[in-house]
């Protein structure tokens, strides 16, 4: 590296958010009393002091060029006293104190940014996602492209609030799963053990890569006069941990990798508490640029959920009530032996009762 001015640690820490709060937020910090939805994408918070703060939520693709972000800033200057915020799902929130500013603000967002307003309450929320082929070194699929394709499909669902409860979706581009644990997720699925590049494999990495395998499938080996490793194929369960450690163990395969859909994850401690996502269907083709099969599968789930769930039931709670048998029947997905867990806690996922729906 040939940096001209080596940096001494400056340890600035986190920005001082106090400088960035909308004035109404600053004045009413900790004094909010209640909120109310006004229309999809717009809600108001009312404070103890009687003040109101209207929030307009605009769907963003997360990736922003500087010119685009500058246009966002201009809107904040024009309507929001130069303040704005992002949500934990990459949306942009513009905030105004007067109800009459809402429509002009929305118009401006549409005109200048072409961002939709929505993604609140019982809508199809913005999809959180990861890097994909755009920047990561590990992906088997893209992220931004899958998301764009899905959000196009479910645009109406984003701008309206027609579900029984919020629907949160995420995608990830390798089995590390930087993406979220959500109502529905689109993740990558490998179909075979890693291929080993005995030439590029790095001697010094061997102990590390051997020790990272959770099922002890990797063993030291000698091939062509070099130290390398071998993978015991019967043991390997295609988790990709080795690939994340060492690129010479290539787990990806453009021809055989597929996408899987997972359902019923939830972080909120509401009602029954957090829950894991569970495999809904696997083997969907990794089909850029539009991944139509993924869109179809997600739609099937959404339709069944919309038709069958009670108010306030998240996807996983709905399935919990109707049972997986009915979930598979209503979505038309096939239940296969691969849906049955075979990893460490497999037994704890079995139906250990005589409860059956016949």
């Amino acid at each position, binding site marked *: *590296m040939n*940096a*001209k001015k*080596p*940096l*001494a*640690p400056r*340890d*600035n820490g*986190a*920005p001082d*958010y106090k*400088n*960035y709060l909308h004035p109404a937020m600053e004045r009413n*910090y*900790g004094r909010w009393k*209640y*909120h109310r939805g006004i229309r999809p994408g717009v809600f108001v918070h009312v404070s103890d002091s009687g003040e109101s*703060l209207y929030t307009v939520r605009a769907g*963003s693709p997360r990736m*922003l*060029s*500087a010119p685009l*972000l500058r246009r966002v800033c201009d809107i904040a200057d024009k309507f929001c006293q130069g303040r*704005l*915020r*992002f949500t934990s799902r990459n949306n942009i929130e513009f905030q105004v104190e007067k109800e009459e500013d809402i429509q002009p603000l929305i118009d401006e967002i549409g005109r200048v*940014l072409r961002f*939709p307003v929505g993604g609140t309450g019982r809508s199809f929320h913005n999809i*959180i996602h990861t890097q994909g*082929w*755009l*920047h*990561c070194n590990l992906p*088997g699929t*893209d992220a931004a*492209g899958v998301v*764009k394709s899905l*959000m*196009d499909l479910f*645009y109406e669902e984003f701008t309206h609030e027609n579900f029984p409860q919020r629907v949160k979706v995420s995608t990830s581009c390798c*089995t*590390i*799963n930087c*993406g*979220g644990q959500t109502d529905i997720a689109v993740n990558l699925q490998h179909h075979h053990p890693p291929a080993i590049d005995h030439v590029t494999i790095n001697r010094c990495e061997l*102990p*590390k890569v051997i*020790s990272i395998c959770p099922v002890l499938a990797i063993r*030291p080996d000698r091939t062509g006069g070099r130290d390398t490793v071998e993978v015991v194929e019967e043991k390997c369960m295609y988790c*990709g941990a080795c690939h994340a*450690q060492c690129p010479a163990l290539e787990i990806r395969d453009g021809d055989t990798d597929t996408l899987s859909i997972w359902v019923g994850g939830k*972080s*909120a*401690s*509401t*009602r029954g508490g957090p829950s*894991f996502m569970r495999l809904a269907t696997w083997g969907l083709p990794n089909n*850029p*640029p539009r991944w139509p099969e993924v869109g179809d599968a997600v739609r099937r789930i959404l339709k069944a959920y919309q038709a069958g769930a009670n108010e306030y039931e998240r996807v996983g709670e709905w399935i919990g009530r109707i049972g997986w048998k009915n979930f598979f029947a209503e979505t038309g997905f096939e239940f296969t032996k691969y849906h049955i867990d075979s990893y460490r806690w497999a037994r704890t996922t079995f139906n250990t009762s005589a409860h059956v729906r016949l």
Partner: protein
Amino acid sequence: MPDNELKLPLLDQLEEGPWPSFVKDLKEQAARRPQVGQLLEQLEQSYENRWDYWRGTAINVPGYGGGIIARYSDLGEKFPQVAQFHTIRVIESPGFVYSADALRQLCDISEEYGAGIMQLHGMTGDILLLGYDNEKMMDACEALMDNGWDLGGSGNGMRTIPCCIGPARCEMACYDTLMLTKYLTDKYIGYLHRPEFPYKFKFKLSGCGNDCANSVSRSDMPVIGTWRDDIQVDQEAVTRFVKEMGQEWVIGNVTSRCPTRCIHLNGDQIEIDNRNCVRCMHCINVMHLALAPGKDRGATLLIGGKRTVRSGDMVASVLVPFQKLDSDGAYRAFSGIVERIWDFWGEHGNEHERVGEFIDRVGLGTFLDGVGLEPDPQMVANPRSNPFIKFEEYAAPRLDGEPHKAANVLNREPDREEDYEGEQP
């Protein structure tokens, strides 16, 4: 390289449709920054071949051990502009609140030194600035730091901390998520910049059990707001609500959804057995005009969440049922717990072993001893169902060496190193 020279038949299809198109935005930017054009061209090739062309390495800014995600292109000869295409992780403003000017500054730096594209925000919470080569990356960091920004986390250290909007704009907030985010970030900035843990360590801060920061499933130490007195009930508002929605609706959608059935509708009044309330937020969410969290507020501290690789997904579990977070003393008490965790896990954790995996290996009981916390039935959904208890009067807790081989061991490094040595030619 003007836009119209780019041949992107597949990506072009992502310009269509109502949702804002990153391709369209990047194409426009490509007209100004040639890297972005080559980025798209490489991406087009990925779409075509369903293959990735990035290689990773560790590059660090001197004095820092993280914050840069270095990327080299395998197609560097064909696309020299992206031969080096690193990302700078920048610590976000707590609550993701910004002034337009602050963001414009990022735009400027980003265009001056990099590709002028960024992601707001990364999954962990950072601002991601993309497209720097080895040299410009240094300059960009310099410029960022001069302006008060700081590098985010990567590698085996504390990571950038995100939080929900909390008291800044939410009536549910049970503690000041923004202030604690800044406090932890600043106090432990050294652990973030100079990673020296066994593996990464993430906090995520949510003001209440709704967990809008997704903390339980995506952080090693979720901090989730809660209260320890009674839910505040405005019975007049309850009456109005029951009148509006009808008794049956309220029973069907509020009281019968309570996980412990501790809330009841008595005519048009709400009665709560607060001793059995688990602070799940549901009744408050639905009837937020009438119900509110109690007044004696704080947070539940959890431990050990992470996602899929190796272990399979793990949701964090309760470590400290209730922690006040409203004074310097409370902050210090909380920090004390954090530091004891880091010490104990730091000393005994294996390389690449998240704190949740460490707990799986040594046992939660041993972990509690190690960090000096009392066991509490709230930590478990259920006590053990097997009599296989290692009473300590006899044997030491399973921390190092031999015990790694026990059945509940996840990462078996010592084993395999032996194997490895043993079988060398």
